[in-house]
């Protein structure tokens, strides 16, 4: 029941915001209220969530098309609960940010953002393949519009590339879903068995690799992350990319053990290449969002390394790092937006010297930067360490590449910090003051959650999969409950 509620509340709020003829302020207020209610719902649900249970929780199932074996089936395991939590928190921060900046045509804007949040929750909670596809597509529509209408100067091109890439991925996935579901006579994830069909497997794989994105499929990333409004970019990189994590962990790994085994090497090589490629490119981007975009890409490569190591350490690490990266990159995109608004530019050449007289801004940038480079002791470090020690068992070369990426991450993160905070005081550094209460209220909760996770990463890692045994849990899944 709660799962359905978590999906319905943002959708209902979206409808309400869109229909009610309220003023801009009231619309924003209502949207924020909806988002916060969603967070409250999630937090309340967490208290009753039995993380040790083998069973799916808060599940609901209703026949939809009985002829085709399609049903509305939702439910949550631990790792899904964390991904949903990430969604609602980042969603609320994004709406708060939009409220602070102010957007044109607020009713449509907030309606779409809430719709996006609702669809994302749906993606992470689906237990039926076709339902997953429906939500997966539903989440893309608001993104197209949000980027295409409210985006930056090159928004049309950004939207177009995004549409092309995602359509390509989605169509392949749809073909795979239909082929897989028809061949098995059901679309219910729990009832689906395993398949050794490489083509069906590849359809899913490519769709998720586009979403992540992994190396040859990343062409949409730069423009979308730069041209979208900062809060949409925050949701894109922080949450939407995690749809790939969910899909791989919950659809590909359990149902395609054979093909995963055969093609694991390829996936790991792509992931490692993405990690290095993203890190190296992040090191020479001319603007804040460019650095975060490619850093996001690198982090997704790292998460993929964890997933495709298919062992307990790697999977636990991948889930933890998904949450970490979601919070950090969302926080960083919001900060980038704040800086762009205040100083009129996100180009590093026009920034610099912002630390002087702005202790709050300096602290926030520094803290987020340290999380980005995964300083030992941070939750990002815990995730990274788990992933790399997991993938080490698949081959030391991958871990060596990962270790090299630690150094690369330090290089680009420190460069970003220095370019914003230190260096010379450049032209764009107008006399604009420190962060004010509203801005801090947006970023500090994210930082606070990161701090809690740093102190206690096991909160997520030990509570992602029943009995804390991801591999056996996933392997046992294809027989059905």
């Amino acid at each position, binding site marked *: 029941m709660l799962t359905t509620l978590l999906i319905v509340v943002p959708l209902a709020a979206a409808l309400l915001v869109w229909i009610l003829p309220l003023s801009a302020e009231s619309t924003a207020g209502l949207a924020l209220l909806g988002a916060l209610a969603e967070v409250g719902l999630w937090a309340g649900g967490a208290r009753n969530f039995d993380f040790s249970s083998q069973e799916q929780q808060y599940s609901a199932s209703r026949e939809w098309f009985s002829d085709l074996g399609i049903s509305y089936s939702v439910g949550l395991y631990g790792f899904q609960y964390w991904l949903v939590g990430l969604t609602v928190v980042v969603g609320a921060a994004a709406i708060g940010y939009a409220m602070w900046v102010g957007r044109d045509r607020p009713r449509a804007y907030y309606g779409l953002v809430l719709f996006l949040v609702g669809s994302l929750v749906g993606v992470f909670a689906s237990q039926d393949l076709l339902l997953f596809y429906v939500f997966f597509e539903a989440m893309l529509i608001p993104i197209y519009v949000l980027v295409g209408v409210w985006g930056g100067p090159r928004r049309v*091109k950004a939207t*177009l*590339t995004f549409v*092309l890439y995602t359509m390509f991925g989605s169509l392949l996935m749809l073909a795979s879903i239909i082929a897989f579901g028809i061949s098995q006579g059901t679309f219910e994830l729990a009832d689906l068995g395993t398949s050794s069909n490489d083509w069906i497997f590849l359809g899913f794989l490519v769709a998720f690799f586009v979403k992540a994105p992994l190396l040859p499929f*990343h*062409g*949409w990333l*730069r*423009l979308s992350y730069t041209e979208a409004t900062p809060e949409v970019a925050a949701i894109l990189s922080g949450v939407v990319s995690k749809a790939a994590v969910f899909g791989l962990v919950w659809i590909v790994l359990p149902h395609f053990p054979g093909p995963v085994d055969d093609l694991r090497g390829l996936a790991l090589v792509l992931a490692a290449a993405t990690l290095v*490629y993203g890190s*190296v*490119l992040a*090191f*020479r*981007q001319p603007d804040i969002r460019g650095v975060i975009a490619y850093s996001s890409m690198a982090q997704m490569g790292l998460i993929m390394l964890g997933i495709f190591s298919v062992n307990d*350490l790697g999977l636990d690490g991948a889930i933890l790092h998904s949450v970490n990266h979601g919070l950090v990159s969302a926080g960083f995109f919001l900060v980038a937006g704040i800086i762009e608004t205040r100083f009129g530019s996100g180009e590093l050449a026009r920034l610099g*010297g912002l*630390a*002087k007289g702005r202790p709050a801004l300096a602290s926030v940038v*520094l803290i987020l930067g*340290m999380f980005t*480079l995964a*300083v*030992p*002791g941070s939750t990002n*470090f815990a995730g990274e*360490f788990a992933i*790399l*020690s997991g993938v*080490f*068992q698949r081959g*030391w070369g991958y*871990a*060596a590449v990962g*270790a*090299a990426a*630690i*150094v690369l991450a*330090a*290089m680009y993160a*420190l*460069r970003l910090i*220095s370019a914003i*905070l*230190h*260096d*010379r005081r450049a032209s764009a550094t107008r006399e604009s003051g420190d962060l004010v209460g509203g801005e801090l209220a947006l970023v500090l909760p994210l930082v606070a959650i990161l701090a809690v996770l740093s102190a206690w990463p096991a909160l997520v890692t030990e509570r992602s999969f029943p009995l804390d045994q991801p591999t056996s849990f996933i392997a046992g899944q294809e027989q059905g409950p």
Partner: protein
Amino acid sequence: MLLLVEAGNLLLLLVGWGLVGLASYLLIGFYHERPSAILAAKKAFIMNAIGDAVMALAFFLTIAKVGSLDFSTVFDAASSGVLSDTVVTLLALGLLGGAVAKSAQIPLHTWLPDAMEGPTPVSALIHAATMVTAGVYLICRTHPVFEAAPDIQHLAALLGLATLLVAGVVALVQWDIKRVIAYSTMSQIGYMFLGAGIGAYGFAMFHLVTHAFFKALLFLTAGIVIHRFSGEQDIRKMGGLRKELPFTHATFLIGTLALVAIPPFAGFWSKDAILASALAYGGALGWILYVGGLIGTLLTGLYAFRLYFYVFRGEPRHAESEAEHHGAGEAPRSMTLPALVLAIGSTVVGFLAIPGVWEPFEEWLEPVVEPLVTPSATQEWLSSLVAVCFASAGIYLAWRAFRAGRELVREGAIRDLLEHKLWFDELYDALFSRPAQALAVRLRDDVEQPVVQRGLDEVAEGTLDASAVLGRAQSGLLRTYALAFAVSVSILALVFLVVR
């Protein structure tokens, strides 16, 4: 730092390890409006990140092979021979990599002199007394691993020797008061590595403790001197401070004597114990280390007293009006009191290990680290005698050069080499920094831009064009629609007939 020292497993140690690195980065960059400070901070962090990464790799290996990062479990596995030689060697190598980066030993040493951009008390605390010596602690703490991989342990000793010699000669030509002290720190940590590398863990740790006292003392008194000159750090512009700052002069001298290892000051007891251990270790390695270490004491005497003479003796060389003065006379008590405490420490801590008479320090460490070598009292006293002779020779030469107004190293190729710190910075710049940046730029401009992004543009424009063409078909003219309909139907009919 306390987390680092008190950690009961390698992972927690790595967390503390990283956090002190973070603190160091932030504190070096404390004067964040100075570009050189920010550069130095970044350099320190990245050098240490390399060490951390190497260490993390060793930990991954440990997890894969041992299944735990707990000290006792890992040590049992290492010493019982469960692990293959390769694994233990790699593990030791990884740990050594981390230790070398943190403790600024060759080849990851270049960050420490630059780290002197930080405030002087910071240099005293983390870049002299505590954090940089963490590498020595690590080797001593994980000694069973190193004992199982003797080659790597010897490598540690040799790296220590190389560092103490290189740092010693480079210190001879430095003009910045803090950099001289920084190089002396590198060189003293070199002694500690040397000691740890031959299994004289107790003495290495002992030197760590005494060094903490006299090096912090030197930094704090140097801070007083710098304060006196309103931030000036060039020793060519100092001089004759002996009369003006008598207390600072006395404490600085104590620190210098302790550094040079003149009895009865603390450095004497600890450094000579390490040298005696090298003598007792014997063999070719032992002799190389011993002789190298002796040359090191000579160098220490030279550069330490060169510094002392420049700053405190001779005539004042600074040209400034009295008005610029930070108030003539001794520094305020808040600055002198810590120096006094440290000076007392630098004098008496050495007595914790008087060879053959009273050696409580080693007994304290005995339960955890059994030393591999224990020099006899005779060896210790004999070696000490030789070492003191070398150190005194160094002092004497420094004094003669100072009297004659000569530099210790004449102009020429060698001096050039030393002033460029043996070209390490330039070498790394050319080998790693530049290629990495060039690679990033190449990837951005030659791969990402033209192939990925521009290819996309073409696809996107193609789509737009196509849709424009298709859009034109939507003309609204009934005639056209009818024609299109007729043509399509006839084509379909044709196809149908042919296929059938």
